[in-house]
């Protein structure tokens, strides 16, 4: 609550960066969604009914993010400052949610759940149980906190460099402050979350391969 014009400049500058990088992320993410079906058709045919739901939820979260980002970028003088701030909050929340949904699908590959395998066919499919797999909580927490840490430090690094060149610059000092808040908060938790994840038990295929290769061939 400062009303300081620097913070408005900062929000607008970061919004511009977010818009450009978001566009690149959206396009490269579309490429990935095609590749899932085109490069791994057999896997997606099998896994689609089980783990398709978080992917479609990710779609909803992504479109929500895009809609509110549009309101944020073009609404500076068109909607109330209160509504504008809440549009920004919606962008941040739905962006995080879309990451969480994709990581849930990845967690399912490490700890498959929500189906039974009968003669190579998945039966009794339960998409909710698949999403609530054993690796979901630790992986999504780890990934989200790591995203805040990585981006926070990258942005802090850019503003720190510019501050070194111009030590009296109040704009970069404020930017560095906020970036470091976002970067510094999560890492402690991220590290402890990562340790919650025993890799061998959570990667059954890899573990099975390892065990098989260590057993001498008997004939």
């Amino acid at each position: 609550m400062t009303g300081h014009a620097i913070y408005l400049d900062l929000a607008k500058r970061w919004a511009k960066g977010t818009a450009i990088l978001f566009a690149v992320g959206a396009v490269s993410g579309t490429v990935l969604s095609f590749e899932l079906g085109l490069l791994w058709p057999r896997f997606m045919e099998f896994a689609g009914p089980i783990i398709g739901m978080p992917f479609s939820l990710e779609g909803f979260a992504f479109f929500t993010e895009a809609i509110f980002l549009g309101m944020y970028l073009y609404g500076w003088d068109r909607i109330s400052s209160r509504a504008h701030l809440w549009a920004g909050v919606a962008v941040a929340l739905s962006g995080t949610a879309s990451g969480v949904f994709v990581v849930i699908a990845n967690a399912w590959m490490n700890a498959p759940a929500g189906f039974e395998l009968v003669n190579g066919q998945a039966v009794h499919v339960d998409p909710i149980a698949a999403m609530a797999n054993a690796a979901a909580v630790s992986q999504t927490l780890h990934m989200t906190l790591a995203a805040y840490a990585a981006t926070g430090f990258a942005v802090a690094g850019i503003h720190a460099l510019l501050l070194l060149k111009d030590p009296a610059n109040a704009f970069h000092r404020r930017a560095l402050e906020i970036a470091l808040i976002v970067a510094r908060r999560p890492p402690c938790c991220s590290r402890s979350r990562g340790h919650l994840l025993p890799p061998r038990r959570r990667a059954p295929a890899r573990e099975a391969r390892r065990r098989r290769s260590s057993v001498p061939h008997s004939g």
Partner: protein
Amino acid sequence: MSDLLAARSQMAVSLAFHIVFAVIGIAMPLMMVLAERRWQ
């Protein structure tokens, strides 16, 4: 190069490129909103 290796390589390149922007898309809006909150 086998088909499997080609598919894996293409997936690896796509993921490695995308995750940088996906991660920025998660955290940048938070910083943006924190800055606006301090302005208001």
